[in-house]
């Protein structure tokens, strides 16, 4: 038999307890409740209770099991005035949620009583469209997108690895991307370094990268450092960033990036390649091994040739650089299981992908229990590319 709205609300009141704002406030202080805001997205954006999950009523049945998989979890639903949340709560009870209450008076009553509420980042209309596919993912959503926009990521190198990493970080809306690279665009780079273009040959890579990234996403602030990373500038450059992405092309810089990250406690998203093979990992100080735990000493000079010496399939850094971008985004969002203590290894000719568990070395000279390296050293000398002071310079060319 058809029912009027009043009858529907009466039906709901028979099964849904209605709590006033004071009861809700006390409950939130004392117990692990899920707070569900069932208003439309634009209402939520204008202000909501702290910790509330936005789930507009139109999507309630479709998404609630993804957001609240445990049906024993108690839920407080609220809307603007208490009507929509009453109907939503009844629906949740019918879906098997064991304890659901509706907040009488809704957000309006809450706010009028001077109780705490917050307003999220106000996205522009363009941002709402640009990041709409992220907003659909509960693991990202508006909160995650806001974190991405606030994040600062420093890329070491705008070459084969740095190119795809930078592209996807910019597309994802990582708000500040710093790039350290002293080099200029060369014709031989264009087989794989997709940030750069033929008409920019001779242009500093950081400038070319800035042009490409800002053309893709004007939201992103790109800061170029056209200098060689060194023991003198590394700590200063890293200090302003949340995540460091190592896409460099030589061992002295890899050890320098590692040591500086350990000293500053910053995550180092590592990627490296050779011909048809590549590897990636996340070295997170205090949470897993560092690069030196795996490779306490560099290989002898000449034993591990660079891409310029040994060649590289152009698409390979695309694969590894995308893994680095993905891991960086996971770290920023705090979702999933980052590659901490694990290394992914790609052998693209056989298309074998392996993940190995890695161990932290308690005797590691930089992150171990009794570190012997407590300040940045001369990494060219450490890698045997320059004899100690007084011994005369030998081939110091970085592996390019």
């Amino acid at each position, binding site marked *: 038999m058809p029912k009027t709205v009043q009858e529907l609300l009466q039906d709901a009141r028979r099964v849904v307890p209605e709590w006033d704002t004071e009861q809700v406030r006390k409950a939130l202080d004392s117990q692990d409740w899920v707070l569900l805001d069932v208003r439309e997205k634009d209402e939520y954006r204008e202000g909501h209770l702290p910790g509330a999950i936005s789930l507009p009523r139109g999507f309630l049945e479709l998404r609630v099991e993804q957001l609240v998989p445990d049906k024993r979890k108690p839920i407080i639903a609220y809307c603007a005035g208490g009507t929509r949340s009453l109907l939503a709560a009844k629906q949740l009870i019918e879906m098997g949620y064991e304890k659901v209450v509706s907040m009488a008076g809704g957000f309006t009553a809450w706010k009028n009583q001077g109780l705490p509420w917050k307003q999220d980042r106000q996205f522009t209309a363009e941002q709402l469209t640009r990041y709409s596919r992220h907003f659909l993912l509960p693991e990202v959503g508006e909160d995650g997108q806001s974190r991405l926009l606030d994040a600062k990521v420093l890329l070491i190198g705008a070459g084969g690895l740095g190119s795809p990493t930078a592209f996807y970080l910019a597309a994802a809306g990582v708000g500040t991307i710093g790039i350290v690279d002293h080099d200029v665009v060369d014709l031989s780079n264009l087989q794989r370094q997709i940030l750069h273009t033929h008409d920019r040959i001779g242009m500093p890579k950081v400038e070319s990268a800035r042009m490409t990234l800002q053309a893709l996403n004007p939201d992103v602030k790109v800061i170029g450092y056209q200098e060689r990373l060194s023991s003198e500038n590394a700590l200063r450059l890293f200090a302003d960033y949340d995540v460091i992405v*190592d896409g460099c092309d030589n061992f002295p810089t890899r050890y320098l990036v590692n040591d500086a990250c350990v000293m500053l406690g910053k995550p180092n998203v590592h990627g*490296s390649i050779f011909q048809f093979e590549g590897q990636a990992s996340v070295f997170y100080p205090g949470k897993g091994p560092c690069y030196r735990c*795996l490779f306490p000493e560099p*290989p002898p000079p000449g034993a*591990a040739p660079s891409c310029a010496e040994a060649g590289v399939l152009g698409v390979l850094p695309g694969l590894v650089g995308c893994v680095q971008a993905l891991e960086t985004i996971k770290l920023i969002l705090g979702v999933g299981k980052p590659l901490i203590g694990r290394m992914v290894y790609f052998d693209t000719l056989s298309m074998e992908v392996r993940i190995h568990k890695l161990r932290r070395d308690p005797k590691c000279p930089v992150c171990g229990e009794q570190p012997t390296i407590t300040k940045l050293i001369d990494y060219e000398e450490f890698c045997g590319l320059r004899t100690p002071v007084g011994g005369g310079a030998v081939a110091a060319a970085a592996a390019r």
Partner: protein
Amino acid sequence: MEESARPIRLSVKLHATLRRYLPAGVEAEPFSVELFEGARVSDLLARLGIPDDHAKICIVDGEQSPKERVLRDGASVALFPPLAGG
């Protein structure tokens, strides 16, 4: 190593720059290496002629292992060098 000890057979794979140490005649990987019971990762490295100072990760049966680890018969060993390129 005791020559009288029971032989063990390992399945070995070398990666990237370590491929230069593939035994002569080996074309497909993984390849088989025979050592003796009680042999360690370091014995395998010596057999393959990989210098001690060549940085590498030794993965035995999927886990990073120190050079002192004793190998079991049938173990799968993969050796990975650090890669410079980017």
